[in-house]
């Protein structure tokens, strides 16, 4: 049974903050099939199209039939931990700081034998579930979890290295005026976050959700306007060193296309709130997050982007909005590369139309703010990089994978 995590003591200000280190990150191009699965929380291995052999480690040629047709497919994750050992020391600086570290061999029901990191509750000779996780370097590794959930299993220190669990972490929600921001404050409180900073711009503009926000345990309202560089910088200066997870909830949803719009005022606002807002947050909070990636139990862990799935494929009736979302997606890819040296994940959460005012005229299915908030928290708990929430997001993801041109035409009609 996992020892429950205890609330970390306040940091000793006289001690040096340890610099983040990464485990070895090099993977072959083919092996990034595992990275793709781990990013979404799927368990996928190569399955030979010709002889159906399940293959590990990733290869370019089937060891049974020499076929080169080896796509990654989701497969069953059950198996048996057939042997384990404990690494007591290592020449690798990352593992050197984290020993003892258990590793073991898992014989999967679907065939292959995989060397995996071991959760504390995974026992030799017993059945386990294998998970693909992104480690601090952002690369996929296998981790053996006990077959059934055990008490406090998320608190396992090896597992917590792979996840961004909000428990005992301090979160910044950048815009508390949105329904999603308010739902997230509740979700993070329920997930055991230590402090939930909630940004409010223009405090002189009243809004109905403020009292409810204030009533949520451990919520602290802070002034923050993502369109104002000075405001973002000041917030980072004041609280940046004690913020472990940033969730950018600033949104700007308006219908209208690129041709079918009158003037650029709204378009400029979209880009200001979304793309420039993200850039301001990235410059203000990014460096300090990256520096605090190994800062104990409440180390800096993640930057979360809430993105319309139409960042992936423009939806012309919300076409200008889609374009701003696409700009944010591109920025998020850059941020991943920039924050990875600190072991800080950039999690993109894609969703279709929300059950909120600005999507009033859009027919269902729509995503409830609470559902999106729940998906954000679960994604962090699992350590994901890409999350798709709701039917529209999942549908677009699948159609994009099969035939992007068909999707482009169909979404416009």
């Amino acid at each position, binding site marked *: 049974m996992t020892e429950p995590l205890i609330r970390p003591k306040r940091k000793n200000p006289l001690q040096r903050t340890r610099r983040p280190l990464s485990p070895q990150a090099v993977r072959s191009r083919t092996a990034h099939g595992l990275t793709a699965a781990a990013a979404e929380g799927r368990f996928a291995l190569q399955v030979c199209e010709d002889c159906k052999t399940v293959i590990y480690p990733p290869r370019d040629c089937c060891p049974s039939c020499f076929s080169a047709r080896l796509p990654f497919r989701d497969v069953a994750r059950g198996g048996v931990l057939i042997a384990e050992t404990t690494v007591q020391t290592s020449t690798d600086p990352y593992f050197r700081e984290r020993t003892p570290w258990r590793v073991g061999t898992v014989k999967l029901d679907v065939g292959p034998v995989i060397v995996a990191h071991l959760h504390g509750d995974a026992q030799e000779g017993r059945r386990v579930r294998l998970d693909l996780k992104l480690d601090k370097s952002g690369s996929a590794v296998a981790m053996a979890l006990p077959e059934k959930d055990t008490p406090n299993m998320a608190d396992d220190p090896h597992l917590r290295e792979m996840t961004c669990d909000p428990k005992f972490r301090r979160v910044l929600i950048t815009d508390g005026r949105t329904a999603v921001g308010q739902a997230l404050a509740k979700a993070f409180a329920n997930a055991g976050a230590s402090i939930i900073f909630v940004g409010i711009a223009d405090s*002189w*503009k009243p809004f109905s959700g403020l009292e409810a926000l204030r009533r949520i345990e451990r919520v602290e309202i802070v002034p923050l306007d993502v*369109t*104002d560089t*000075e405001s973002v910088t000041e917030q980072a200066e004041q609280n940046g060193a004690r913020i472990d997870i940033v969730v950018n909830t600033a949104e700007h949803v308006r219908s209208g296309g690129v041709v079918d719009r009158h*003037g650029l*005022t709204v378009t400029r*606002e979209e880009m200001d709130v979304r793309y420039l807002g993200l850039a301001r947050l990235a410059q203000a909070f990014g460096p300090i997050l990256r520096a605090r990636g190994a800062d104990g139990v409440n180390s800096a862990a993640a930057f979360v982007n809430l993105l319309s799935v139409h960042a992936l494929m423009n939806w012309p009736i919300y076409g200008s909005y889609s374009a701003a979302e696409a700009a944010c997606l591109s920025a998020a890819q850059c941020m991943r590369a920039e924050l990875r040296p600190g072991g800080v994940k950039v999690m993109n959460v894609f969703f279709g139309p929300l059950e909120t005012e600005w999507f009033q005229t859009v027919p269902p299915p729509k995503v409830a703010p609470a559902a999106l908030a729940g998906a954000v928290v679960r994604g962090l708990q699992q350590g994901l990089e890409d999350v798709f929430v709701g039917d529209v997001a999942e549908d677009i993801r699948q159609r994009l994978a099969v035939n992007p041109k068909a999707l482009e035409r169909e979404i416009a009609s």
Partner: protein
Amino acid sequence: MTVDVLSFARAIAAGEVRVIDLTQTLSQDFPTIVLAPELGQCAPFRMEEVSRYDERGPAWYWNNISLGEHTGTHFDAPIHWISGKDLPNNAVDTIDVAKFIAPAVVIDCSKECAADPDFALTIAFVEQWEARHGKIEPGHWVLLRTDWSKQGFTDYANLRDDGAHTPGPEPAVVKWFVEQRDVHGFGTETIGTDFGQGHHFNPPFPAHFYMHGKGRFGLQCLSNLDLLPPKGAVIVAAPLKIKQGSGSPLRVLALLSGPKT
């Protein structure tokens, strides 16, 4: 009689003419007018540092700024309102520059506004004021002292679920200012020249409708009106020369005779 502008300048330097700043600082957090969110919005003041003695410009500090024509302390030109759209020389770049310097009367209704944020200025109120201070002469700015500029931002904007509650003029008094008193323009401490609930008046937004319809000007987000006498101040209010601009942020100065008391 020839006026000696050099002696005027010497009087300013000697403190015999006092100069009072009626301008709010242009800052990011200063409230702007709020319209229904589906309508176009006035941009708030924003500032991006270009360089500050650093690798982006080693020996100099400067910023790029962005803002709307109606952000912060600003001037309204007649072209701002539909009623003034066809007037000649109705934009900030074409208004006769001599009109940027004009005397002002200051009507103090600060006590009334402290008691009631929905205080509406009436003809009767102004007539009482005239009984004490004399008739408003043609060509004067009428500045409404409400002490609203001394409020915190929340009370300053005073937005409730039925909109803003801030003082301003009734339609009849604005029409009367223009037609009976031939005023130069109308200036306020609040975000707009109009009453907070002025969209329910007929016509809606009368300070805009009547003033601009007759080619008169507006000043809003003024401060320090409490430092001005009821009569005797001269206002210097020259907007930026924006091509066909509907208004402009500006520095508003009041000139007063007599040394500082």
